[in-house]
């Protein structure tokens, strides 16, 4: 495969961990890019395109994760997702509810 495979380390920065809202935010963002994104937590991997897979990680607040992206927009996808993680999935934004 010629496509670049890039990685980025992120931390779960919200108070509740990788629960439904967080997973949905990741899912909705990742699908905007022509890229396969996987989340790696220790020895577990979960596709960002699979809600149940992500939720089954049960990633706690403070958990470090590695995002892996393969595809033409890998860099952009990782930039966007890293920002989402850093913002704690925008859970404390007054505008929460955007999909």
């Amino acid at each position, binding site marked *: 495969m010629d496509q670049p495979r890039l990685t980025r380390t992120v931390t779960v920065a919200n*108070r509740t961990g990788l*629960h*439904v809202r967080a997973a949905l935010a990741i899912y909705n963002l990742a699908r905007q890019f022509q890229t396969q994104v996987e989340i790696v937590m220790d020895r577990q991997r979960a596709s960002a395109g699979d809600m149940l897979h992500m939720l*089954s990680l*049960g990633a706690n607040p403070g958990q470090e994760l590695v995002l892996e992206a393969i595809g033409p927009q890998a860099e952009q996808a990782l930039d966007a997702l890293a920002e989402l993680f850093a913002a704690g999935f925008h859970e404390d934004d007054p505008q*929460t*509810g955007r999909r």
Partner: protein
Amino acid sequence: MKFADFMSPEAIRAELVADGKEGVIREMLRALLDAGKIEAPEMESIVKAILSREELGSTGIGRGVAVPHTKHSSVDQLVGTVGVSRDGVDFDSLDGEKVYLLFLLVSPLDRPGDHLRALENISRQLRDDRFCRFLKQAKTAEEIRQLLEEADNNQFAS
């Protein structure tokens, strides 16, 4: 966190009859009420809280599954139940499909970790096709209870 730690066996419903999102949520909460896990004066407040949470984004996460939930001041530990809808319920799901398997959780205000652990367990089991199939095919609450026990004993996804 095993199912036995938070699921209320008497509140399991193998045949939900309501046909709308609010309807099934009420039906499952009534089951928790009848099982003595939530208090009658709190019922409406809990319904509202769950529906408000749904407004932020449907918990119909695709593949025929929904995980409606809320934190609430009236419970001091996580309580949950599971319901199966034979005909499926429109839940405004991620994939546009109806929902057949619902896991409802009401957690205390100060323990987000319990909620996450329960969600982790539920999700892990639901990734197993056999678990989902058996759940959908269960004819009685007792069958579902046994299925959850088998899941706790790592018979499915581990």
